[in-house]
């Protein structure tokens, strides 16, 4: 809690007390505006305070007088608690002495407040300087002491947000990163895409950052720096982190509380800044893990954006274009389309084309001069990143190709019917059953529909499997193999009853490269496949119960 708030509260209390003793006040508590007027420096604090409450932010364009004591700003800082009611002193106190002490205390506090306020003002000035210079000075404003630390921190964070906004911002700077440093990739783009940015991606999910500059504007083809405007529209299209605290109507304290806890919890270091940009909220933590041999998705994109990889980018662009077309939604280009430099095929033979493209790119990466030094691990992760990049863009069309509504409904219905199956029925030992972990695993499985790239979908399955194995570890500590794992996993899949499960599997199988399906992820995916197969074919014989009993249970759960 910032000392400024306390300070203001204290000051108010002291003032109320002294006013009472001087006998010129009504018995009720002194209104804030009155006490301000008594200072001969009138500020419309209540109006300001409500303005601040709605934006829950400092006003950066503050142009008040130099030494104006900005009470409102202090008392409505994000974490300040509501002012406590002033304690009433019994009327029989030794009034004269008390009044004097109170007055001097009052004065001291006022001075202190002024000091702090001028400090804040200084920082604000600094901020506006930074703003006009498009420069980030954030780190320099961080090393203050004591009471202003909090303010400095907040301001510093804002400065860095503003700095990022104004300068050297790349699109993937604000790509949402659900999985440590792996992005879901909805908004990443290695190409400049003004057409896509003009429209909000909510109305056109396929086009979310997925439109290429098809105007043949070659010199802009690889310019990936974004202007503030694109930042805003991009960031506006983001959903998720910070959206709760983004509601301007929310109660100030609630907003501030949820924000500060969110800041700590998720490492988000953003705050709404000026009014026009108050919804620039999602600034994911960009902590990079120590360099590994594998390329992260971000590293992959960075490398791809180097001039040396221009030919690759162009090739990728044309491949994606051949599927999505100039409108970015799979509709063919108009007959007399100007300068579309690829042949449009839409979703025709999309699976084979993706596989061919992946294999072709894999070979290309291997021999490409710009990718030589990344090594084997780097190359294989490059292949996966490329898959993620392309599939994220074409996911909507690609998924349409594999959707099997019938099968999806069938497995969902079957899961419901068989929901009576317990781990015990599949002879799972009791000591390795951990309901909590199994529920977590189910949650992971359910997430499969919120990802676009096949690799990310597989990761959901892998995480679910890992959770189950961790339960085994807690359970008996000894090694658990497939004999123990599969029955439990079947129960988890049954319980999760994921919508579109079959379509998701088909999607993964169709668009994931073969090598991935040979690894651990592939093993987990294979287990999902076999769990599904088991669920679809299970009958009384595999459950060791009588047929009548089985039928009865199925009927009950229908």
């Amino acid at each position: 809690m910032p000392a400024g708030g306390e300070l203001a509260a204290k000051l108010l209390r002291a003032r109320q007390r002294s006013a009472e003793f001087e006998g010129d006040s009504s018995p009720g508590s002194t209104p804030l505006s009155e006490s301000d007027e008594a200072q001969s420096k009138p500020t419309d604090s209540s109006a300001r305070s409500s303005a601040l409450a709605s934006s829950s932010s400092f006003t950066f364009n503050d142009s008040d007088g130099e030494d104006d004591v900005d009470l409102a700003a202090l008392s409505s800082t994000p974490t300040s608690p509501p002012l406590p009611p002033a304690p009433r002193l019994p009327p029989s106190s030794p009034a004269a002495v008390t009044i004097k002490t109170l007055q001097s205390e009052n004065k001291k506090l006022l001075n202190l407040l002024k000091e702090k306020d001028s400090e804040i003002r200084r920082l604000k000035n600094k901020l506006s300087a930074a703003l006009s210079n498009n420069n980030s000075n954030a780190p320099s404003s961080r090393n203050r002491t004591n009471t202003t630390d909090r303010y400095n921190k907040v301001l510093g964070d804002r400065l860095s947000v503003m700095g990022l906004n104004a300068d050297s911002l790349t699109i993937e700077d604000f790509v949402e990163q659900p999985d440590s440093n792996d992005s879901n990739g909805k908004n990443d783009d290695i190409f400049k895409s003004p057409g896509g940015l003009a429209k909000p991606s909510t109305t056109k999910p396929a086009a979310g950052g997925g439109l290429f500059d098809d105007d043949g504007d070659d010199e802009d083809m690889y310019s990936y720096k974004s202007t503030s405007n694109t930042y805003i529209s991009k960031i506006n299209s983001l959903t998720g982190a910070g959206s709760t605290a983004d509601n301007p109507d929310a109660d100030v304290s609630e907003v501030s509380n949820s924000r500060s806890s969110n800041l700590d919890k998720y490492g988000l270091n953003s705050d709404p800044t000026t009014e026009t940009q108050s919804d620039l909220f999602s600034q994911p933590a960009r902590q990079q893990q120590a360099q590994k041999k594998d390329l992260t998705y971000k590293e992959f994109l960075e490398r791809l954006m180097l001039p040396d990889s221009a030919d690759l980018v162009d090739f990728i662009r044309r491949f994606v274009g051949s599927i999505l077309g100039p409108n970015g939604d799979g509709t063919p280009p108009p007959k007399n389309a100007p300068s579309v430099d690829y042949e449009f095929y839409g979703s025709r033979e999309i699976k084979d084309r993706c596989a061919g493209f992946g294999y072709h790119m894999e070979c290309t990466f291997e021999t490409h001069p710009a990718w030589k030094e990344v090594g084997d691990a780097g190359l294989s992760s490059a292949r996966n990143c490329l898959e993620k990049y392309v599939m994220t863009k074409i996911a909507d069309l690609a998924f349409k190709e594999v959707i099997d509504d019938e099968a999806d409904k069938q497995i969902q219905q079957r899961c419901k019917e068989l929901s009576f199956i317990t781990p015990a029925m599949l002879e799972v030992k009791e000591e390795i059953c951990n309901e909590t972990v199994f529920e977590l695993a189910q949650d992971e499985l359910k997430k499969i529909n919120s990802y676009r790239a096949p690799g990310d979908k597989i990761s959901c399955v892998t995480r679910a499997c890992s959770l189950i194995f961790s339960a085994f570890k807690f359970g008996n500590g000894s090694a658990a193999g497939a004999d123990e794992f599969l029955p439990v996993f079947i129960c988890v899949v049954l319980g999760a009853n994921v919508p579109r499960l079959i379509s998701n599997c088909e999607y993964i199988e169709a668009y994931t490269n073969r090598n991935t399906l040979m690894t651990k992820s592939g093993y987990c995916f294979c287990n999902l496949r076999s769990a599904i197969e088991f669920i679809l074919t299970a009958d009384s014989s595999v459950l060791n119960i009588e047929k009548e009993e089985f039928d009865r249970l199925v009927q009950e759960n229908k």
Partner: protein
Amino acid sequence: MRLKVVLLGEGRVGKTSILFRYIRNEFQEKQQSTLQASYMDKRIKVGSVDAQLSVWDTAGQERFHALGPIYYRDADGALLVYDITNSESFTKVRKWVKELRKIVGNDINIVIAGNKIDLERNRQVSEAEVLEYAKSVGASHFYTSAKQNLGLEECFNELATKMVAQNKAKFAGGVAGLGVPKGGKSKLVVVDDTGGGKKSGGGSCC
């Protein structure tokens, strides 16, 4: 070269123990995989070839028998494990071999492991019978003991050698014009390379 090996065997014959022992001895200093003993990655050198072995454990209970093909249909090799003190488990091996040959064909290399050789005195499966059978189906046979760490290395090495040899033979033919892929399964070769290039207009980055 990435090679996939499935581990087949009835419940309680010690499949998991074999894998676990193999991992533990080889990866002692490394952290245990999150999937513990059901999946294992191992680099193995066969002659001059670096092979990456991924060993997949399968559930051996009879109720899951029908799920087998999901695991082994694209495997390069299979390690069939039986318990020498349990003749039933050897019958199961026969069943699997038949199935494998029927579904995957002769492309899959089979090694049969008679586990629990430390319990020799309780042996129920006769050695002559096993050896003859293995020979008849073109499989190698080893005795192993997960408990005493016997025969495991030999088992996996033999399997790897066979798989590498087979893959080499496959790749030796090559595919005209495409350039042979560096590693991976023969299935990779089948992939149509022209898709990306042809359909996106020229493939300028070749």
